[in-house]
């Protein structure tokens, strides 16, 4: 849930739009209060237009489904409360930092992949559409290329154009 709210924040949707609360079966009043409070919170934020955020929502989804994040989330307890294969226990804080960094990276990678759905594009075009820095795009792009998700499509003049591979 931390990861989801971080992703929503990164996408500019705002973490407030997703809320998690604990209500037991005996707490009807508490439930009513939560619904009242949170509804007015969302009400203040106003309507949400999914079309406006189509690209970013797709990127959030892509990031959530990335093996790296799934793996990190699945191993959380194992690594911070028990130990890894080298019998080392991972510090809670360190793990959280790592997860946050991974979340941001996976989001940006996924965003680049989403942008590339529209056909072959240069680094500059990708940066413009995704709102990321050109330097960051080229760095991430080489990483995704290594993972076999994008490839060099060809040159337009001297500008390299990249294409998204299957999936």
């Amino acid at each position, binding site marked *: 849930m931390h990861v989801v709210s971080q992703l929503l924040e990164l996408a500019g949707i705002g973490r407030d739009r997703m809320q998690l609360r604990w209500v037991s079966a005996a707490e009807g009043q508490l439930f009513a209060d939560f619904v009242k409070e949170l509804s007015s919170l969302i009400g203040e934020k106003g309507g949400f237009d*999914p079309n406006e955020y189509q690209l970013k929502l797709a990127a959030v989804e892509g990031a959530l489904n990335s093996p790296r994040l799934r793996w990190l989330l699945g191993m959380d307890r194992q690594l911070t409360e028990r130990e890894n294969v080298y019998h080392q226990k991972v510090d809670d804080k360190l793990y959280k930092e790592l997860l946050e960094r991974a979340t941001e990276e996976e989001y940006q990678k996924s965003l680049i992949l989403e942008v590339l759905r529209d056909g072959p594009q240069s680094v500059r075009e990708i940066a413009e559409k995704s709102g990321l820095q050109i330097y960051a795009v080229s760095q991430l792009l080489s990483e995704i290329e290594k993972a076999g998700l994008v490839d060099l499509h060809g040159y337009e003049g001297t500008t390299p154009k990249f294409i998204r591979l299957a999936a």
Partner: protein
Amino acid sequence: MSQTFEPKILAFLCNWCAYAGADLAGVSRFQYPSTIRVIRTMCSGRVDPSHVVEGLKSGFDGVFVFG
């Protein structure tokens, strides 16, 4: 249509906790806004992050998970 904006919210309720809580709220006639659309899950742990994204994609203004 000068009414105040009423958000449309998707709510995932755990069958054993919040769903029963919501039921109780109904039975005891506690007033709460009719903004939420409820999906009952067998456990709030069943709610996958992608469900949240899917909800936002389908045009909900917010997503709540009650467990």
